């Protein structure tokens, strides 16, 4: 099966899946109690029937549900993600506004956790049974099991409050008016805690997966053969074991990459990071349907896209795999 054929097949399926998700999302969020007008009025501490009526009309909630669905689908067909009347902005601009912060956070966490996880996992596997293996295994178990928000808050208390090393919240120093390199450094400084906190969980996952997978492959016949023909342990480990052991890690990385745009609600909330995860969570609490649907759609598109990409990476990592088979 050639690549082009594979890709077009997957893309068509992807679009169908996205359509189904979009329709499902639409009904799912309307099943939740309350609506955006009621929430907005409810927050004001005073409301009357006329205000609710004005808001409902503004939000387009007076239309029959089928009309609302049609307007929504029609918009998405023309790449119009709708308008948030609560925030008085097009959904697309709200999402794009938050995208850089989210990509920076999830991207940094992704790279850090992948690199650290693979190296730690490979190291642990090579020293299986020794103290360094136990250390790595224990650490990854701890990071895997500890709730993210607890690590987040504790790291704020230790590294920001007690040691004063890094800022505890925010994307950059508010009011500093930095530009250029100074701004980049400032953002980097703010990025350290959230990226590490978010990355730790995945580091643990990758390390455990890589270790287990390496140990499994290490016992395979072709590894024995490689060793028998006199290759050094380093080369065997890198070229024969690691390359074969990396497939499950790629699968997991593909899953994580699919969530890059969805943001990380918890991390973004605790660190006041202005990303998409918070945009989505706020929209959920406010029943801001159009924003919620927009973020859902973008995230599901990312997941579908990265699934296709993961399949392609499989082929590179292991040419024996017939993609799409």
């Amino acid at each position, binding site marked *: 099966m050639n690549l082009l054929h594979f890709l077009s097949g997957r893309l068509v399926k992807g679009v169908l899946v996205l359509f189904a998700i979009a329709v499902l999302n639409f009904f799912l969020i309307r099943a*939740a*109690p*309350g*609506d955006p007008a*009621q*929430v*907005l*009025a*409810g*927050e*004001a*501490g*005073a*409301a*009357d*029937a*006329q*205000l*609710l009526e*004005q808001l409902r009309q*503004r939000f387009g909630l007076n239309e029959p549900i089928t009309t609302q669905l049609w307007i929504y689908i029609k918009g998405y067909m023309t790449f119009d993600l709708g308008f948030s*009347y*609560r*925030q*008085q*902005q097009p959904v697309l601009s*709200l999402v794009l*506004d*938050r995208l850089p*912060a989210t990509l920076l956070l999830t991207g940094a966490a992704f790279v850090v956790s992948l690199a650290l996880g693979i190296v730690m996992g490979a190291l642990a596997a090579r020293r299986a049974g020794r103290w360094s293996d136990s250390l790595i295994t224990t650490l990854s178990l701890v990071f895997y099991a500890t709730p993210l928000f607890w690590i987040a*808050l504790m790291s*704020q*208390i230790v590294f*920001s*409050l007690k040691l*004063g090393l890094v*800022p*505890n*919240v*925010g*994307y950059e120093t*508010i*009011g500093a008016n930095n530009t250029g390199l100074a701004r980049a450094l400032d953002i980097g400084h703010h990025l350290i805690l959230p990226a590490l906190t978010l990355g730790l969980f995945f580091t643990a996952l990758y390390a455990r997966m890589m270790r287990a997978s390496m140990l499994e492959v290490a016992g395979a016949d072709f590894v024995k053969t490689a060793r028998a023909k006199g290759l050094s342990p380093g080369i065997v480990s890198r070229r024969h074991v690691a390359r074969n052991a990396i497939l499950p890690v790629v699968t997991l990385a593909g899953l994580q990459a699919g969530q890059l745009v969805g943001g990380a609600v918890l991390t973004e*909330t*605790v*660190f*006041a990071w*202005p*990303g998409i995860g*918070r*945009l989505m969570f*706020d929209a959920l*609490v*406010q*029943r801001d349907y159009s924003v919620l649907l927009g973020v859902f759609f973008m995230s599901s598109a990312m997941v579908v896209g990265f699934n296709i990409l993961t399949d392609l990476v499989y082929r590179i990592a292991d040419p024996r795999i017939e993609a799409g088979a």
Partner: protein
Amino acid sequence: MTSSAFRRHLAVTTALAAFALAPSMAPAQTPNTGGSIHVVVQPEPPMLMQGLNQNGPTNMVAGNIYESLLRYDEKLNPKPSLAKSWEISPDSKVYTFKLQDGVTWHDGKPFTADDVVFSLDKFLREVHPRWRPIANSQVEKIEKIDDLTVKITLKQPFGPLILSQEVGGAPMIPKHIYDGTDYRANPANNTPIGTGPFKFKEWKKGSYIHLVKNENYWQKGKPNLDEIYWEIIPDAAARAVAYETGKIDVLTGGSVDVYDVARLSKLPNSCVTTKGWEMFAPHAWLTPNIAKGGPLANKQFRQGMMFAIDREFGKDVVWGGLGKLPTGPISSKTKFYSADVPKYSYDVAKAKELIKASGYKGEPIKLLALPYGEVWSRWAEAIKQNLTDAGVNVSIETTDVPGWTQKASNGDFDMTFNYLYQLGDPATGVARNYISTNIVKGNPFGNQGAYVNPEVDKLFADAATAPSDSARQELYTKVQKILADDVPVLWQLEMDFPTIYRCNVKNLVNSAIGVNDGFRDAWKE
């Protein structure tokens, strides 16, 4: 820290704050000019156009951008703002406001009586849920006399009118920007234009709102500060850490968990005040759904529940000693409060007796908790325990904010928590919860328990339009007595939302709406 020690501490710090604020006593401390202030706003407001949105966070930020005719001191006495002076006719039906000279909008256009008439007669009448009922049922006409004079003529005397001109209740809106447009779709909503001491500069959604000094502010020499940054930090514990690390100067009321208040106020250079909420006087209670019939419709049963609940425990333990026990529907901070009412102490034996006498047979009652954070959940648990001790079969029902709003709005509950602002005057902020004409679906601020008492209806109606304060007091004293005996809702707490701030921030809170009146007079040492 024990609660009484905390109260002492609170008393000391508030006394100090009062000292600093009293102009006659302060040894001529000249305010510094310049500097920026970082303040927490929680949650992020939906918009800053105060005429169209009155959410708590909106009011906090927008009170710097917009202004109204009047301000109010902590005793709720009117003070000049955009109105330089005002006169009330002897028959209490005509209010004449003289406007300040030389006021301009942030875009440079002059502010005149035309703007006032447009705001009160057109814009707010159409969109503002608090001004609309006053404008529609009490106001005869609003007219411009000259560029700097506006006359409001009432259909009948309406005492609360003088308290209705707070900036959240009646902000002045620029006519030249809004007249003839679709208000809610006006693109200017994203770049609010007011007359206030600070101008809107930038809103980085999810991060901060930046306001800068209005160089052409009508009150010469004000404001003292150059910049305000309203920072959006969604997690309460992270807000507390941000304050401790010095990133934040002011934690506005309710922005940290109650159990953090005592700890944060003990830090060096940390001050706390409960002032600045006198106009709102948030009053918390449990609303039994009388419309559902059964035990909740029985007065004896409701009285029994009042005796069963250890309200003192709720205040001291759940709320960390913040607030005061209410005696009835009207807060002690609100006008026309009367303490001459039947009282309810914590008395389980009496509670059991009343509940038994009411004929209660163990019907299950669901208590709908308010989804506003940990403290409300703990409070629901404490009250559940109290009621269970008195033999009431209670379970707790939880939901999220939109879910609560919907249930409370539609009467879909057995008994729910609620708390509401009293807005200074019982006619605007209290009557709405007890009069039978306000048994409405669609919002949670009416008479949600569907209490009906024609005598109460009449007393509230007469009191709103009675010609003099003494006549009003007499009627409100009477109605408070009746309500306290009837227990249409179970009053729990006059809430305090302390503002925590760096002590080098001066003159932060100086009116009945506190930080909502903006940082016009605030300065940094």
